[in-house]
């Protein structure tokens, strides 16, 4: 044995010196200056290239194409053409956003005198009624999750508003009440998700903030462990907030494809794990198709490789914990799985609290502490905050707290029965409509569908004209209906199925198969342009239009 080892050693050593001599021979004729410059330059180039490659997981050819296109924009003619197109788009976008504003009166200066109470309330009423979609009639996908303006609930909230409008948990000594309410909400939600006694978390302003905070905590944790360029591994179906967090906090992202059921490919996820990985993500359910990922498998991966696992329950946060009791099948997705280290859950969706509240939970304070921010040397005092905000609206906390207590477990179960029941009914009807295919598994409350025979965006546009407001998806082209309590009635689902059938029939019969609809045009164009900054410009046009003053008259 020892002899064999010695032999190995000898061959390795002699081979090394052979190689050394060979290298020397090859290099004798090279000018030493060139050698030095080339090796320094080469290393520098390699480092830059590696950094460039690691920055994004978009395929190289697509990035190159985007790069070429962005250079093309430097040509004045091309830029002029683009500007022309953009200004055309701008006009359309501005029109589409401002069309609800029929009066076109815009307050652009603070009035000198106080406006009288009547006038304020009148204007507020006018503004409120600018919206034309029938939210109460169940015409809108997502957005408002409970009966809009339900008297009883709203009265309660208004009462709470009166005492908590100015409260602020940044000063727990001044506002001990809303501090306690937040602590209670966290405990209540942690218990819903089978949190261990150590489970902890914070209330945030929405699902996006909850997700970003989890990413932040895991980034900081990774950095504390010496990982300089942390990587997060997320399904392509994960919420856009993960990519937002990645951009904000300088975390690299690896997107994992999904299988035909729209569940993340766990094997691909396993292959993507590197020693830089700071978190794995699964959704229960995801936003695009409403499908629940295989959280069990992801949890096992996390446990095996000692990587934190975040489960995004933002959307279905107050449905999935009640599904068992409501009589539906749902695989385990919460802290019962030992690998799951954090969960985000929106109280302002199916928790029926007013907008502006969500919860981020961690298995133990070890993770939460990486989310906390504190600065110990600030002249303004030792400053510590649990979330991204400094001052926070204590009102949102109080409203969430009141809503949870007011509804109680039973009401949540009842509503879950109705909503998931309605979703299953709609999901069963989709394949029966000629041309439509169910996209994903519609495991909870979102029903997504697509078509191989006609352009699905045209369906969305036509339904929009009939007063239905759906969400558009891409890669592949699809649309979805996120069912809320407002749709959890047979008459709404039946009316929708009927309209959907008619619209599909009409489009299938049309010669262009719906490819000429306006949404189809936007998405079609966006998918074709390799230079994503151009699409970004269009979204900037959209956001700017939201803040723009209306043009006078039509």
């Amino acid at each position, binding site marked *: 044995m020892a002899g064999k080892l010695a032999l190995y050693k000898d061959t390795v050593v002699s081979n090394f010196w052979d190689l050394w001599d060979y290298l020397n021979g090859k290099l004798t004729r090279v000018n030493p200056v060139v050698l030095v410059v080339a090796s320094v330059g080469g290393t520098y180039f390699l480092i830059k290239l590696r950094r460039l490659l690691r920055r994004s997981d978009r395929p190289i050819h697509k990035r190159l194409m985007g790069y070429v296109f962005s250079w093309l924009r430097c040509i004045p003619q091309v830029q002029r053409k683009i500007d022309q197109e953009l200004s055309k788009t701008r006009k359309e976008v501005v029109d589409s956003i401002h069309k609800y504003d029929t009066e076109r009166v815009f307050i652009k200066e603070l009035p000198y005198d106080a406006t009288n109470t009547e006038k304020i309330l009148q204007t507020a009423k006018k503004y409120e009624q600018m919206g034309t979609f029938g939210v109460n009639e169940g015409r809108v996908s997502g957005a408002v999750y409970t009966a809009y303006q339900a008297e009883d609930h709203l009265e309660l909230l208004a009462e709470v508003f009166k005492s908590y409008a100015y409260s602020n948990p940044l000063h727990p000594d001044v506002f001990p009440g809303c501090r306690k309410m937040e602590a209670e909400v966290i405990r209540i939600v942690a218990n819903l998700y089978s949190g261990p006694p150590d489970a902890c978390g914070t209330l945030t302003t929405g699902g996006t903030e909850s997700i970003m905070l989890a990413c932040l905590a895991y980034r900081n944790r990774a950095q504390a462990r010496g990982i300089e360029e942390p990587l997060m591994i997320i399904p392509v179906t994960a919420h856009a907030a993960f990519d937002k967090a990645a951009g904000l906090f300088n975390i690299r992202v690896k997107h994992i494809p999904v299988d035909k059921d729209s569940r993340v490919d766990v094997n691909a996820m396993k292959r993507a794990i590197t020693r830089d990985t700071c978190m794995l993500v699964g959704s229960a359910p995801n936003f695009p198709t409403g499908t629940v990922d295989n959280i069990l498998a992801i949890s096992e991966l996390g446990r095996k490789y000692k990587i934190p696992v975040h489960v995004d329950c933002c959307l279905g946060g107050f449905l999935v914990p009640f599904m068992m009791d409501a009589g539906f099948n749902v695989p385990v997705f919460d802290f019962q799985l030992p690998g799951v280290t954090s969960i985000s859950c929106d109280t302002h969706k199916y928790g029926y609290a007013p907008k502006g509240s969500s919860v981020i939970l961690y298995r133990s304070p070890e993770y939460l502490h990486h989310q906390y921010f504190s600065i110990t040397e600030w002249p303004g005092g030792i400053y510590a905050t649990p979330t991204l905000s400094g001052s926070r609206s204590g009102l949102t906390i109080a409203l969430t707290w009141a809503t949870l207590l007011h509804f109680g*477990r*039973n009401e949540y179960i009842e509503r879950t029965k109705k909503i998931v029941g309605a979703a299953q009914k709609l999901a069963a009807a989709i394949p029966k409509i000629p041309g439509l295919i169910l996209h994903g598994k519609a495991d909870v409350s979102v029903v997504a569908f697509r078509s191989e025979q006609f352009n699905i965006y045209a369906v969305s546009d036509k339904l929009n004209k009939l007063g239905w407001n759906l969400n558009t998806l891409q890669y592949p082209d699809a649309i979805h209906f996120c069912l809320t309590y407002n749709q959890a009635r047979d008459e709404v689902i039946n009316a929708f199925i009927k309209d959907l059938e008619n619209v599909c029939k009409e489009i299938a019969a049309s010669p262009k198969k719906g490819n000429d609809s306006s949404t189809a045009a936007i998405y079609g164009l966006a998918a074709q342009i390799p230079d994503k900054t151009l699409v970004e410009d269009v979204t900037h046009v959209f956001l700017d239009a939201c803040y723009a003053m209306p043009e006078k008259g039509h």
Partner: protein
Amino acid sequence: MIPRIDHYLKMEIAKNFLLLSGETLQIFAHLVEKQLQDIEKSHLLVATLFLTFLITLFGRFRDARKSITTVVKDKFFKVVRSIPYVQKKIDEEIEKIRVDLSHSIHASDNSGVFCSKLPEMGMKTEQVVEMADLYTKMESPKYLEGRVSGAVFSDESEEEMKVYTEVFKRFAWSNPLWPKLFPGVRKMEAEVIRMCCDLMNGGEEACGTMSTGGSMSIILACLAHRNRAYKRGVTKPEIILPSSAHAAFYKAAELFCMHVVEIPVEKKDHKVDPRKIKKSINKNTAMIVGSTPNFPYGSMDDIETISEIAYKYDVPLHVDACLGGFILPFLNASEYEIPKFDFRLRGVCSMSADTHKYGLTPKGSSVVLYKSKEYLHNQYFCHTDWQGGIYASPTLEGSRAGVNIALCWATMLYHGKSSYEQKARAVVDTTRKIRDGIKNIPELKLQGASDICIVSFTSDKIDIHRFQDMMNRREWQLSALQFPSGVHLMVTLNHTKEGVVDEFLSDCREVVKNIVDNPSKKAEGAAALYGMAQKIPDRSIVREFANAYLDTCYSEPPFVKKTRLE
């Protein structure tokens, strides 16, 4: 007169210069070649590669957002803490503090209730309201009577609350993420932004967004300027920050991987010296910050001079007017000696102003404004390839509480310029009155001008922590400052009420006298903790105090009997 050099001559000079530098390079290369000739090539190769590797490593070390002394210090304390005996001692201390904190946080909670589970059956409206009222009653320092520094800026008048309650009912469910579903709330935000731009003298081009608070506005501005720097090829963006700037800037720097170049404020007036800012500008500078006024000392930085520097070096200047945003524009500039601080100055590229402070709206709203869209666009987020559709959002949130926007809109209309003017005058007059009163107490020493909305002071003669502690016992809640130790009072509308100033000053005098008479006693409670915390060299321990404090805020009270009210 400089002789005019014609085009030909210029070309000739350039050509000669190029030739000359080319020759120099050649000579240099030749020299190096001679030196290197005798070295074995493979050695040379390995040596160069190794050296390059070392340099990149060192570069990375330098990039780490800490100075070398901090890195060494942190390492040292880490090693010390790894000694079991030391660790045990520290853990004991932290545990003691945790118990203290828990006691003080839960002190006001005598309800004996803690809801840890969703009730099986929903509670009736009256029950919930009753319980909410019980929790409200826990509030002890009476902020409406002017006993608290900052925190609540409005006097919550009854008529005002009536309007807000109605507006609340209409917009509780609204969400500007869907501008087509909630066109009204979208318009309200646009109007609030336009009104604020007008207040800050931004032209037609000025723009911005609302946010959930001052920290968020500051964070957004830092994000926008960081992204702008990234676009310009800067890889390690830096913020030039006066040491008096708000903690949110340090937070933003940590979140967005920026490096803070801290400029200590001048001892004499607690303002930043613009010359020091100028010296710190380099190619990595992404933004400069000035405050009007700053949080610790209430003094206004010299924005006019800083603006010129920022303009000259093409670096965006952010003016943090979170505090002064709804005071300064309403004051008569010459009467109150207010220098220019807003978009009238050409270097000012962004501003933050809190509507929920002196704008008097309910908590949860602030604005961040930019000189023009090109800056704002760097704040926008968009994800063009998301499966859930092309996704764009103006701020950090996705869904946002439309109700905060509607309330802010209603508050601004409710008050109007005239009411804000009157209130701004009242706040500033009160501040100056308190300042003059403090000046007359020889044991106390003012820090900074204290002439807008904050009176900040310290003492060389008495223990200021004990002062704070004793004022606290008299139900005056002041904010603690550190490095150096001090306290400040942020004046709100509630302090402008009759008698508050006199009572405050007379209590100050009595407390000071009391301390002078009994010099040996020590401070207790939170104030004492502050004094101690400043002396700890290992800041990671103080960070653990902070963590313990936040954890306690979320903990169950130690004496729970019931999980719901009977």
